[in-house]
């Protein structure tokens, strides 16, 4: 199981060696990045199989926690580490002349993403989070236009602000407990962080990590960035990076912060996210920003779901997260060529039947039309919300339903435009890149396959959620030396 560290180390080393390799052979430099990700992706899947129902801890240098730094692997962590690796591989952003730099950044993103999912130490999470942030600045700015630079700068200001808040939250946690190891924090939290200081620390960490997870007040960067960058990079940020930030918040919530107020704050921010995101998407007049706002709404649903205490909320939220992880990147890949004003899309089904069919399939699942997976995910969330005997949770359910109604409206508007007959002889939009369409088709096929295997997928996910929600198991696996 020590090879778990390779998921982080291998892409990291390759990223720094890539400029040297490029000096020797441009061809090798072009292909070695994806190859490394194929290797680490396969390795991750193998480890996931091997792991089974166990949970494993990797101690670096043989030092026991809390002195040593650990990686913690349960099914949730390995699943998202694999998602980060495979996601980066599928959305490999090499186009244009800046291929080398983008390859380096993509490899760093895969490494930092796996690190975020696997890390069992609060400060390591912060470092990997900052690495992810800096890499995404580079990826967004790699467009090279003034527009891309300005969008990156505005994103950077919010992101650096969030990171500083998260660091202040870490300082508060350390001040109260004197440790950064998540397992030891889980041991100490009920005595030392079940107070106002703990709540303040949670809010700081939530807002800090929430920047990447498109949490309500700190998501103003989302439409600007997704509209100013290429479809693949938008897909990476909306699909993969946002979910990794979400997993981090989830871990902190399960292990450290048990106050009901913490859940309620998240619930309210989630509701505001759903409402503002869906309304803005409804008003949007170009596909890129429509998808960006809809992504804010979907992340809001996840926050609402995770605000339900216990395994049930975790299960429902993970279902929405995984569904979004598959659907939104595919939609952004389609938007690479269709990103402009919505009326430009009129009649595109005639020239690109596969793209239009995919768009309709993905939209239906995003809205939640049975029997597609999106329906089951939303249904789970709603059932859990109705089971809570609290008006705030009912408000969450109402927001999700209203959001779905808006989704129907704006996504069907696009779908209707695609299938409208066009008589005028206007210049058509360029056809999709074969690679973009191929990956989108792959993701669409995965969605369809998920529809047929929904029961077994659901059982598996429930088991993963049950394992992740078990904080005693986390403590026993890591087994830190007792606090002084």
């Amino acid at each position, binding site marked *: 199981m020590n090879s778990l560290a390779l998921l982080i180390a291998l892409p990291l080393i390759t990223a720094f060696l890539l400029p040297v390799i490029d000096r020797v052979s441009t061809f090798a430099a072009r292909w070695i990045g994806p190859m490394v990700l194929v290797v680490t992706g396969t390795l991750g899947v193998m480890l996931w199989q091997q792991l089974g129902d166990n949970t494993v801890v990797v101690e670096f240098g043989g030092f026991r926690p809390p002195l040593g730094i650990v990686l913690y692997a349960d099914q949730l962590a390995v699943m998202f580490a694999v998602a980060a690796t495979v996601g980066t591989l599928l959305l490999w952003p090499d186009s244009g002349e800046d291929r080398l730099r983008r390859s380096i950044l993509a490899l760093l993103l895969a490494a930092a993403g796996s690190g975020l999912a696997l890390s069992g130490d609060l*400060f390591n999470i*912060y*470092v990997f989070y*900052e690495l992810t*942030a*800096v890499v995404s*600045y580079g990826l967004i*700015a790699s467009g090279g236009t*003034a*527009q891309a*630079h*300005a*969008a*990156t*700068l*505005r994103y*950077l*200001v919010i992101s*650096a*602000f969030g*990171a*500083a*808040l998260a*660091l*202040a939250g*870490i*300082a*508060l946690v*350390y*001040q109260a407990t*004197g440790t*950064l190891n998540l397992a030891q924090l889980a041991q100490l939290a009920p005595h030392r962080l079940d107070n106002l200081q703990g709540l303040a620390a949670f809010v700081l960490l939530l807002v800090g990590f929430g920047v990447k997870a498109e949490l309500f007040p700190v998501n103003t960067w989302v439409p*600007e960035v997704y*509209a*100013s960058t290429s479809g693949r990079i938008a897909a990476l940020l909306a699909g993969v990076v946002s979910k990794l930030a979400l997993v981090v918040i989830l871990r902190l919530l399960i292990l450290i912060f048990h106050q009901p107020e913490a859940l309620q704050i998240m619930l309210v921010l989630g509701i505001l996210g759903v409402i503002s995101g869906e309304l803005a998407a409804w*008003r949007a*007049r*170009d596909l*890129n*920003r429509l998808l960006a706002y809809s992504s804010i709404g979907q992340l809001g649903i996840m926050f609402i779901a995770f605000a339900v205490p216990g395994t049930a909320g975790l299960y429902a939220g993970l279902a929405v997260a995984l569904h979004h992880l598959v659907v939104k990147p595919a939609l952004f890949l389609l938007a690479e060529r269709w*990103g*402009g*004003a919505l009326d*430009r899309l009129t009649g595109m089904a005639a020239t690109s039947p596969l793209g239009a069919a995919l768009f309709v399939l993905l939209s239906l699942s995003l809205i939640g039309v049975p029997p597609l997976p999106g329906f089951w995910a939303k249904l789970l969330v709603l059932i859990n919300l109705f089971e809570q005997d609290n008006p705030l949770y009912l408000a969450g359910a109402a927001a999700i339903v209203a959001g779905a109604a808006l989704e129907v409206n704006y996504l069907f508007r696009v779908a209707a435009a695609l299938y409208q007959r066009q008589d005028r002889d206007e210049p058509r939009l360029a056809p999709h890149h074969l690679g973009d369409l191929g990956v989108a088709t792959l993701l669409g096929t995965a969605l369809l396959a998920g529809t047929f295997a929904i029961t077994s997928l659901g059982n598996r996910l429930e088991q993963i959620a049950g394992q992740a929600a078990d904080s005693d198991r986390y403590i026993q696996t890591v087994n830190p030396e007792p606090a002084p």
Partner: protein
Amino acid sequence: MDTGLILYAGAFGLILIGIGGIVLSHHLVRIIFGIALLEAGTNLLLLLATWRDGASAPIIVDGRVPALMADPVPQALVLTAIVIGVGVLAVSLGLALRVQQAWGTLDIREVRRLLERAIDDEAGVTPASSLDAPAVSGPLPGGQEERA
């Protein structure tokens, strides 16, 4: 006066000045400096988390153990945070320079307006607010060219 209190006041003061700078000022360089101050404040807060007056470095010299040792962990963390902060500062100043070269402004409101317009132009949609585009569709006094 208590040294610890002064240090805590300094940390929170820096954080507040930093947040104020980010939220209130419109000049990009000032905003970036606000981020730097905010980071300095959080770093100080992190150091203060286990700070004790008169503690010495946790090094055992000639078998003598110091009576009061400082916790080395926050110091290592702050070192990392400073390095990250400097890197981000450099990247942000570089980006601000590029934006200034391209659009000739460092006012965040102006940058935001130009960015919105660039996105709108690229997408081929008319600006959203009625300030930029009057609701009437007919010819206006002054004509299209003058407004553009």
